[in-house]
């Protein structure tokens, strides 16, 4: 075997390398979400458009959770859950993102256009 690396091999390496770079580029182009679903105790409480700046308060198991929408983004600005994970998640704006306040049983979800399942309910 005289040529350990043929011309076609170099071509293939570059071609597949380009596909990998393309995948990086493609998978990080995110579709901005249009609306948010607010659930309390698993039941849908609100469907909120992200185009309308507003603050909504819902009552969870522990107390009131404050949800804020501003400039196409949504966050949980106040929640009685002890660890504050959902508050620390900050602003959400991409389709597919979620924030869950567990002890308080409040969640917000930005659904994708063709939403079917999540990994917990297949």
């Amino acid at each position, binding site marked *: *075997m005289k*040529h*350990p*690396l*043929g*011309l*076609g*091999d170099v*071509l*293939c*390496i570059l071609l*597949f*390398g380009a*596909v*990998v770079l393309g*995948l*990086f580029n493609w*998978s*990080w182009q995110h579709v901005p979400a249009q609306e948010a679903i607010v659930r309390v105790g698993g039941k849908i409480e609100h469907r909120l458009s992200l185009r309308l700046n507003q603050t909504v308060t819902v009552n969870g198991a522990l107390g009131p959770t404050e949800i804020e929408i501003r400039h196409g983004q949504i966050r949980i600005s106040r929640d009685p859950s002890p660890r504050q994970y959902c508050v620390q998640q900050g602003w959400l704006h991409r*389709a*597919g993102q979620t924030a869950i306040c567990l002890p308080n049983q409040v969640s917000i979800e930005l659904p*994708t256009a063709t939403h*079917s*399942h*999540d*990994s917990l309910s*297949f």
Partner: protein
Amino acid sequence: MTVSVSNLAPSQQDQYIARLACLGIVLSVVEAYFPSPLPGVKPGLANLVTLLALEKLGWRAAVAVNLIRVIASALWLGSLFTPGFFLALSGACGSLLLLGIAQYLPKPWFGLISLSLFSAAGHLAAQCLLAWLWLLPSQGLLYFLPFLALSAWCTAIINGWLCQRFLDPHHAPTS
């Protein structure tokens, strides 16, 4: 010794396939114990055996070696018919499919590194498709895909190069 009831004599080809499959099973099992930074990121050393089979014995032998390897190593690891097994099986089918096409690439220019890259691409594509259709029908997989593809690209180049070295008479061990 039990007298064989069949009159099937294994041919030379059968014995080569069995030997390569054995090697592949060992590599698969060893690899299963490698720590992995991300689920799905593996060196894919067992694909070396498939490439060797393809190069030395042809595509049909590569299919036999790979399928025997996947099923037998699953038996060994106790993962037969688990999701992991089906992911491995779909990966094997995808890589064999692309190898079946890529084997017709003109030889002097396209060596084992090209074949290894096609094999890895088929493996990853089939696996991700199955994972997406069956296990994780969400967008979460999309964030992993570039990293999996990058690792597949690196390991495919290394494996192709290794396999080429194995087949190179200049590097063959002299006994």
